[in-house]
């Protein structure tokens, strides 16, 4: 334990000379205590703060899309994602029309892996993605500053001719599916997306696909 040993010993010291003190303090208990504190801190704290994903939901009254937005969705640029159960996602392009109701293969299946949903979105949104990559490279090389970067990336993402994604989570999907889908928007530089509830037509298409046309043959096509 902490000791202050007097070095040498009596006989070697000359008379009259002050005793040489060896002041050596044992730090072991100090280290013990520090280690304890350290372990406590490691268990009770988290280094990383959680992240947030900001969302803006439409106000309920205008849940029904206005004329302008309707036109956009009609556009072939629009892609609708139906988040199904068991981590599956189903998608179709453009708006629902009669041909889609007739053919149960009008919607396709994908998953949340890089080769699934992301590959499709990247292909559809290649322009914006490439611009974003170029922009990020510029930022990395300090050619543009933070504010410019923000402004320019906003511009790319909100390009009026850009990809529009409508996310429709079904009742069987989980919260994780929703966040994954939103995350893909971020990765694929899609600025225009919305979370919308499933419509009758979407349910019809999905059921028709899952039952390979049986559902559709038994029911009337929704308007």
């Amino acid at each position: 334990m902490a000791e202050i040993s007097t070095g040498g010993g009596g006989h070697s010291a000359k008379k009259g000379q002050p005793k040489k003190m060896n002041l050596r303090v044992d730090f072991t208990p100090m280290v013990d205590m520090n280690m304890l504190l350290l372990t406590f801190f490691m268990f009770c704290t988290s280094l990383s703060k959680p992240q947030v994903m900001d969302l803006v939901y439409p106000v309920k009254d205008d849940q029904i899309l206005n004329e302008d937005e309707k036109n956009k969705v009609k556009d072939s640029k629009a892609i609708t994602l139906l988040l199904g159960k068991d981590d599956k996602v189903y998608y179709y392009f453009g708006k629902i029309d009669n041909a889609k109701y007739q053919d149960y293969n009008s919607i396709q299946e994908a998953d949340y892996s890089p080769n699934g949903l992301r590959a499709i979105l990247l292909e559809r949104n290649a322009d914006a993605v490439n611009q974003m990559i170029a922009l990020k490279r510029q930022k990395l090389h300090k050619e543009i500053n933070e504010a410019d970067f923000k402004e320019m990336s906003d511009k790319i993402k909100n390009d009026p001719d850009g990809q529009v994604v409508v996310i429709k989570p079904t009742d069987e999907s989980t919260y994780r599916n929703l966040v994954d889908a939103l995350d893909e928007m971020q990765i694929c530089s899609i600025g225009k997306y919305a979370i919308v509830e499933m419509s009758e037509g979407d349910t019809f298409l999905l059921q028709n696909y899952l039952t390979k046309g049986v559902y559709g043959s038994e029911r009337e096509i929704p308007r």
Partner: protein
Amino acid sequence: MAKIKTKKRDTFIDMTAMSDVTVLLLTFFMLTANFIPIEPVQVITPASVMETKVPDYNVITVLIEPGGKVYLNFDRPNDKREILEKMGARYDITFSEQEKTNFMEPTTFVGVSIAQLKEYLTLDMEDQKNFLRQTNGVPTDSANNQLSMWIQTAKSVNRDLSISIKADQTTPYPLVRVVTSTLQDIKENRFSLITTLRNMPEGF
């Protein structure tokens, strides 16, 4: 027989350097780490590539556990006190000073209906946890939507509060929708989802 003379060696190790290192590490942890907040249920949030951090203050946390129970917390003790008083006035319940102080604790989540709140606030921390396990969280059904009441009251107390939803990744979507549509109903259509960080995939 000759005695084998073992040389007496000094086994004293100088721990000063070691102590230096540990103190350094300790300082690092103390300065950078933030305490894991104690929550009534442990939820695992999904991961996203978003890099925006949770704001430091003025946050309403809406916690959704996998079974759909909703818990609520506000981060400023003074706000909490005022919110409780206002909610009490709205539902004709008077809370004692002790209950108010109890409510101001950062670990006290609103996790019960307002009728049970008085009973809940008399309990200590451990009993509160058990109590929450037996109850159904803040009522969110359309006939008696106390979640919207709480949030509206909170907003009237402090305009700057921002809402973040923290839900478990396995929560079925309809249970999350209950909360988001409640927020939409009271025109709080700007909120954030709490996620953990995951790295941006290669090449983006």
